[in-house]
């Protein structure tokens, strides 16, 4: 089950404080980057739930995000439904789609699961690319942000929109923690460690996987809705498998299965991307090398590495205080 420790709380407080401070002080370009980080963070949270806590490495989360974005754009611009209602509907549609994908793929494992999700993701990508209603290669424009003028907030201002995304991320993080601590989340970690045993206990394994995939899809859909509102324009490129691959890279860079780590990863990834792109056009070479180095180091990403070091330090302190007698039993909850 997912637990917070002091380090995780500390990192969350630091991240939140940093985001708020940045949102208040930064200029236009800084705010755009912050919003990009926040939306990516929502997407990678969705991916970490399935990959880190359910062992379901999905390569269709980029496509799910795209489905959310397109559903929102179509409902709000073409069908004439109000913006808040379209947001809810888009999240629901993406969740339902993800549930179906999860249910179909639940039987596959390992590389086959990766390939199956890839197939569904690319299927959505090709469909959006081909069908005229989605605007094809040209994408869709004229997407509007929610109107919060009733409470005196103008979301067309990039500062308020960044704060709006931060609020959404906070909500999503809370929802993710609640989901992982619920009965469903506990069943999921049981399924990840031993599906056979869970089946013997009378659990319908595919239902658990599909339900979690649905929840994760709703979160990815929300990321898509916010991404559409952020750039006010969407194109099929959003659904391409490389987006899913990048999301997976962010989760790994941050720390798989830590929930806090992917947030750190998202911030590091976007900042690195902008910094490196300013220096050289070979940004992929840098991120590729870093990815290889991180995986070869066998650390669980940036946050996982810090957590392991921190856990080791705690152990050593405990071992010193108890003269090494019971220290073996008190290992860190990494």
């Amino acid at each position, binding site marked *: 089950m997912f637990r917070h420790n002091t380090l995780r709380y500390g990192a969350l407080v630091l991240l939140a404080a940093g985001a708020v401070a940045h949102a208040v002080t930064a200029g236009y370009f800084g705010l755009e980057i912050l919003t990009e980080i926040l939306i990516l963070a929502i997407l990678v949270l969705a991916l970490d739930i399935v990959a880190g806590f359910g062992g379901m490495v999905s390569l269709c989360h980029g496509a799910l995000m795209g489905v959310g974005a397109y559903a929102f754009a179509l409902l709000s611009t073409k069908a004439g439904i109000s913006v808040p209602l379209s947001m809810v509907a888009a999240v629901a549609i993406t969740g339902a789609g993800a549930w179906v994908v999860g249910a179909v793929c639940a039987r*596959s494992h390992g590389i086959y699961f*990766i390939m199956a999700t890839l197939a569904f993701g690319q299927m959505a990508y090709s469909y959006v690319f081909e069908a005229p209603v989605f605007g094809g290669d040209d994408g869709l424009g004229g997407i509007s942000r929610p109107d919060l003028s009733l409470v005196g907030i103008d979301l067309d201002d990039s500062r308020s929109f960044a704060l709006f995304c931060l609020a959404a991320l906070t909500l999503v993080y809370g929802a993710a923690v609640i989901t992982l601590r619920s009965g469903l989340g506990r069943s999921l970690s049981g399924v990840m460690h031993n599906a056979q045993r869970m089946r013997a206990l009378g659990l319908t394994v595919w239902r658990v996987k599909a339900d979690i995939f649905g929840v994760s899809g709703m979160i990815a859909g929300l990321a898509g809705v916010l991404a559409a509102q952020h750039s006010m324009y969407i194109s099929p490129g959003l659904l391409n498998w490389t987006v899913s691959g990048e999301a*997976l890279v962010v989760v790994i860079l941050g720390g798989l299965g830590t929930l806090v780590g992917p947030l750190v990863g998202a911030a590091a990834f976007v900042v690195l991307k902008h910094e490196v792109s300013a220096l050289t056009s070979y940004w992929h070479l840098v991120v*590729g090398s870093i*990815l290889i180095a991180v995986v070869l180091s066998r650390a669980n990403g940036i946050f996982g590495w810090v957590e392991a070091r921190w856990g080791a330090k705690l152990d050593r302190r405990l071992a010193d205080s108890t003269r090494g007698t019971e220290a073996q039993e008190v290992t860190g909850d990494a």
Partner: protein
Amino acid sequence: MDLGFWTLQALNALQLSMLLFLLSIGLTVIFGLMHFVNLAHGSLYALGAYFGASLAATGGYWTGFFLAPVAVMAVGLVLYTLLIRRMRKSGPMAQVLVTFGLIFALLDLTRIVWGDLGLPMNAPEILSGRVAFLGVEYPAYRLFVVALGLGVFAALAYVLSRTQIGAMIRAGVDNDAMAACLGINVERLFFIVFCVGCALAGLAGTVAAPLLSVTPDMGLHILIPTLIVIVVGGLGSLKGAIAGSLIYGFVQTFGAVLAPQLASMLIYGFLAAVLVIKPAGLFPAKG
């Protein structure tokens, strides 16, 4: 839409299938034997095209044709000693990620060496015309690609089913621990198969270069079709690779002709259906 039209489409489909076969056979046997997911296989194909185009520019087409696979094999050797040998024991997730990183790195390395613009590569003089074949005029070079694919398939089928090393590879795919107990040096076998797989990827790249434009992202574009081929066909088997390639080639080509709107979705739908009905593919190496 007369008979000639359909013959033409069938030949196009066959040519695409053979290109995919050259690429997927290396990948599928590496996976079957080593349980190694090498997403960077597509990048080796792109490297093959670049080596081929550069060598052809200096020494003519055939220099590129024969030397590019050797050069790609050398790159494969470096990757094997530096990275892949270390990743052998880690899970599929780590392998996918490391080779995903490798795709990124190799993509930019080709951009640094050869630039962003596409490279031209011409078919050799002798194969540049069109020939009459089954009542249609068809480019000779494309027929050469089909013949080459069929030739490689026949050679591999012979080696795998009739020679001692083929028997050793089949034993290794079936049960590597047992094969090792029987005195087969499975590690060396892996190494040989990996080199041959890389060389075939390089060959596919060189052969594809005159047909498609040689661009840095060509490896990324071919990766997904290759993965579809090996997953549909079943990992680790020659029969699966050829069947998967043919299915992909024909579904893609005829889909584009008969239902252009659905063409690109058709093959993904087919893949999803195969994974649901037969999760291990149509002709898996292990029963």
